[in-house]
């Protein structure tokens, strides 16, 4: 067993949660530790702006 897996099983999860809020709430309800990310989809870059930025760089 790898060291990171051994530590996960020995220490239990300390989570970073992205997405459905209920899953983070559920970890808290069980006494677990979780840091929630207010996730959003990445901004879509307009291809024209991307091309311009490419030229400038």
């Amino acid at each position, binding site marked *: 067993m790898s060291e990171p897996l051994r530590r996960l099983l020995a220490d239990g999860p300390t989570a970073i949660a992205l997405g*459905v809020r209920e899953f983070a709430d559920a970890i808290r309800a069980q006494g677990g530790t979780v840091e929630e990310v207010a*996730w959003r989809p990445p901004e879509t870059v307009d291809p024209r702006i991307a091309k311009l930025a490419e030229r400038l760089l």
Partner: protein
Amino acid sequence: MTTASTETAMAVRMIVRPREYFDSVFLMRVSQRLERAPGVRAAAAVMATDANKTRLADAGLVTPELATARADDLVIALRAETSGAADSALAELASALAAPVTITASARTIDIALARRPDANVAVISVPGAYAGAEVRHALERGLHAFVFSGNVPVAEERALKEEAHRRGLLVMGPDCGTAIVRGVGLGFANVVRRGVIGVVGGSGTGMQEVTSLVHNAGAGISHALGTGSHDASDAIGGISTVDALDALAADVETRVIVLVSKPAGPSTEATIDAAVARAGKPVVTCILGDVPARVDRAVRTFEEAAAAAVTIAGGARVPIAVPGGLDERLAREREALAASQRQIRGLFAGGSFALQAERILAEMGVGAGARTIVDLGTESLTDGRPHPMIDPRLRRERIIEAAEDGRVAVILFDVVLGHGAAPDPAGDLAGTIASARTKARRGGRNVVFIASLTGTEGDPQGLGRQRASLEDAGVIVVPTTARAARAAEAIAGGRP
């Protein structure tokens, strides 16, 4: 913001809010709130993915604005009896959408969250599938294991992520992973079970939930349950997470017995997984779904048998599974009461593993393909852009009504799965629909029988006893395992001339 109105017999309104994102469970609640508004016949709040655009079109909730909406745009659509009713409902919208500001999270990325919680060791990812792969990779690069509830991640990407995780000594549980329990803490959908010496590995989320719940209800306990994702045992993925999880539980001193719950492995992956089972050095009970021969020792065919075998090997005194009294007589009465046209079993499952198991059991009992229709409502194609049916009852409600209106259907077979992450009152969510379905069937001179498998423990937030009572009050025959539910359905509808 764009507002449009199309007057036909009813008023249809649509609002498109560009680049405004909410998760699918929150939007489900917004939809339900709009649907409860006076005069509203149908409502939907969704991200404008292609799948959701199709669903809006199917529901007749379309205005011209929908065509140009993008996947990262929020769409709210409703149909109401009058323009006034539509406008009033939309006026409610501002407060419905204001709720997320109460979210305390202000970290916008994994890196910011990790700076606050440097001891974090796992990322729990339930973002839309199109974005999940990038977030998993980011998590792995930061040394985090990943629990990936998100589905619809391309298999090539899944394979690359799992190879990367393996190189780093990390575990990717998923994508399309329903459950895990690590040292007593559930991730995703998980039941409240005591700790013990039985470890579980598998790509079958609801199957793992049935096993862990039955182990608990039998008086034993779970060391860890490591989900691997529904595709892991395929040749496209090669069982990478299954093997890593088996090796981990084999080395874990607290685990004395392992249960492997899996869909059938691909031909070239089978040997890899069998080798991991063989080298475990401790008993491994294998429960492989589908029509496959038992390849290894201690192979069983159902989740119920898997739990029983593991508890026996673990050496605990086993509490027998509680079966409702007078079940055989009830089944016989229901069979007698069927109309001549009623020969079919309709399975409407939230759990894909349950659907697979029911399908196999019914086939083995001689229920022909024409006499059974088993649907996995949680499959990735049906959950793209909307919540899983263990959270969102709407799709199953629609299918229950459709089934009750079909004069051929004798039995509607379904699952109710409790635990953290699942709906707060899954039985209550369906009770009203079951009553309506019965009424519709009776108008057609038929009695449709409802049979539910109920998975969970008394410690679950919903309470096993409360949920059982709620289902029984709705006239449902409630049994404690999927296998028994399938057999009960066959007892009523099987072999009818």
